């Protein structure tokens, strides 16, 4: 129904507008309807990283695109918050400053949500309270090992 779509869209837009500057350390972003009919309009993402001009998502840099998408995914999660949130290597294209802000949001979310994140990034590893290591010492067979941070930096190698 029109009303339900509009209310979900507005809700999502508000949360997206909230997450973006927290991930980028500034700037702004929002969703926009491409058409006038709520029953079939498309939706686009507009983003303005700090100090830059507004643009559609596909004109941003590789890392800026990824971070904008992460802001949108967090907003979607927030619409229907679950007991846990699992993130598989979303930090791969991010520079260190962006990874730090991403980790800051993870720590905040952890107040009300169980966060489980897969990563190769040393900074993200440091944000974990517990690290679970997965190895294939025997080829083709996965095993778990518990790790502390220094071991983890070792085992990613």
């Amino acid at each position, binding site marked *: 129904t029109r009303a*339900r*779509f509009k*209310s*979900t*869209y507005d809700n*999502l837009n508000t949360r997206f507008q909230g997450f973006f500057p927290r991930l980028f350390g500034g700037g702004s972003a929002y*969703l926009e309807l*491409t058409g006038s009919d709520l029953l079939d*309009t*498309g*939706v*686009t*993402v507009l983003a303005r990283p700090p100090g830059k001009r507004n643009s559609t*998502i596909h004109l941003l840099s590789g890392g800026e695109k*990824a971070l*904008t*998408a*992460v802001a*949108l*995914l967090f907003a*979607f*999660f927030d*619409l*229907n918050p*679950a*007991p*846990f*949130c*699992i*993130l*598989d290597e979303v930090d791969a294209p991010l520079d260190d400053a962006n990874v730090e802000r991403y980790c800051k949001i993870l720590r905040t979310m*952890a107040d009300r949500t*169980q*966060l*489980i*994140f*897969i*990563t*190769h990034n040393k900074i*993200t*590893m440091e944000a*974990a*309270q*517990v*690290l*679970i*290591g*997965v*190895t*294939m010492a*025997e*080829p*083709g*067979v*996965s*095993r*778990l090992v518990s790790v502390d941070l220094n071991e*983890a930096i070792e*085992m990613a*190698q």
Partner: protein
Amino acid sequence: MRLLHVKLSGFKSFVDPTVVSVPSDLVGIVGPNGCGKSNVIDAIRWVMGESSAKTLRGDHMADVIFNGSTVRKPVGKASVELVFDNSNGEAPGAYAKYGEISIRRELSRDGQSQYLINKIRCRRRDITDIFLGTGLGPRSYSIIEQGMVSRVIEARPEELRVLIEEAA
């Protein structure tokens, strides 16, 4: 509901029974390329009712069963169990009163498949019902898998609209 642990046996590269416990609210999973990290995520989606083999990076559902290594033979069955702490009574319906909720899915190579809640056989529908209203589910935003970020980036306006409709 709070996730306590995930138990995998015969699921993809986790041929031996393995318990992944969730002892804190900030858990990092690390390890080299190809060691099995994303397989744990696939297992969680699978036990929550994922029915598309493609989404689990396979051609057929039987592809989730450990299919052997250079030294080990394939096995005949995959099993994944999720155990939740429900001491806050948030689980829906009949399950509200249980202190713990265990959800389990098994699949054999001959095609035999079953779902169990607290060790009692049930239908897939009962599994997905448990998650209604919790924000959980095989396709919910509680699991952001490798590649999902790219799909969002490349989503056309019509596709983004569909995502919003589904979240409504």
